[in-house]
């Protein structure tokens, strides 16, 4: 494995660690789709 590969895998591992920490208590109903729906769920401003 090259130095570059090691660095790349380290960056990915760091990101994965953060994701796994927050994802630890995801509910079954929380789906990966529809970021637009999340934004549109906020009420319109008058």
């Amino acid at each position, binding site marked *: 494995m090259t130095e570059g590969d090691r660095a790349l895998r380290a960056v990915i591992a760091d990101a994965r660690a953060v*994701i796994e920490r927050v*994802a630890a208590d995801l509910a079954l109903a929380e789906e990966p789709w529809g970021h637009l729906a999340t934004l549109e769920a*906020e009420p319109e401003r008058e």
Partner: protein
Amino acid sequence: MSDWTIATLAAALAARQLSPVELVRDLLARIDRLDPTLRAFITVDSDGALTMASALERELGAGRPRGPLHGVPMAWKDLCHVPGLPTSCGTKTREYFIDERECEAVRRLRRAGAVGLGKLNMTELALGPFGDNPHHGDAQNPWRAGHAAGGSSSGAGVAVAAGLVLGAVGSDTGGSIRLPAASCGVAGLKPTYGRVSRAGAMPLSWSLDHLGPMTRTVADAALMLGAMAGHDPADATSSRRAVPDYGAALARGVAGLRVGLPENYYFDGVSPEVAAAVREAARAIAGLGAVVTELRLPDPQPVTETASIITWCESSAVHARIVRERPHELGPVARARLEFGFHVSALDYLQAARIRARLTREFVREVFAEVDVLLAPVIPEPAPPLDRVKAGAIDDVVARMARFARLTRPLNGLGLPALSIPCGFAASGLPLGLQIIGRPFDESTVLRVGHAYEQAAGWWTRRPPPARG
């Protein structure tokens, strides 16, 4: 040219004080004179621009103006597909991106009367915040030669700042409208995710890409956004939310609006000049009647990491073919950045997408219960020298990129509207940028705050040396 805005120019054209054809000829001559140094353009479409300008002039003569953009010269980041012109996406492949559809955002602007002068320089495949490009030349910051213009919509920032066009369409996946806007001293708006159709533009990351306007003033950005925004059946991720009259809200001022200044994250590692300019802008906005308070934000790190995971995977998927078959055609940085997605699992991607929804809901409900908009810096330091940003090993370059885009990337993860406008100048003469962040689909309030501050502070009236000639 130096004093025009879209609003004032369109009025002069409509009143027949200026000819659209003569205006385009003047700008093409200006591009011919300045662009060999500035490197804002990849393709200049002289014939197309003059043909369009002639048609628009005839329409004016027949009493048929199309609206507030009639005859206004603009240009498009070279990932927007326009029939008859190549779309290189900043690569060495002349026609890297081909689509049967015209870029919808551009099509709407041209339908409203905008004249396209050509396609603008950009970081290769939109993969970088400095605007350097190994194939088409580095876009030069018009305030200080040899300095980064910001990226990846580098040519758009330069062209607007230097008075080569009155407006430009850029794209923003991690900061690529706001970073060149701040670096070049112009206005740049990343709208809410889904506010503007992405159809007909090269995707970098389907879930985080945003197209938006880059202009001299906030009022001009409001005009462009009004034409660009709205549902597009060709883009399943475009919102059906009604498009308000963005211009109508501008004059309401900021009295009584609640404005937040982050206590955490956004001033970490920022140069003293940048921090001072942003805090002074906050004081000015308070002086206009807004209520400015400091508040602690939910930690942006998790949403930034979700944005990273999603972008890595999606950009690798988009560009898998060139990475696998013709990697030698890519610059080393683009090649390195596209490697990431091949090493991220589907599980990582799906978990990132799931938590993104939760993090967005939490951020919006916590923060916008307290304030109407947030203020923050855009760039952590004035635009650095190009030879410094390109120096060193690839890992160093990529790490440097992450630091420069640190203050913009969380807003791509969240998908919130974010405007960059000038808030002063460094001792070096390089511009500094203020970021104004709002609720989902509340571009009206974001633009309103930006307009009030911009008109009071007056930074937008300063022009870089190439724009003064």
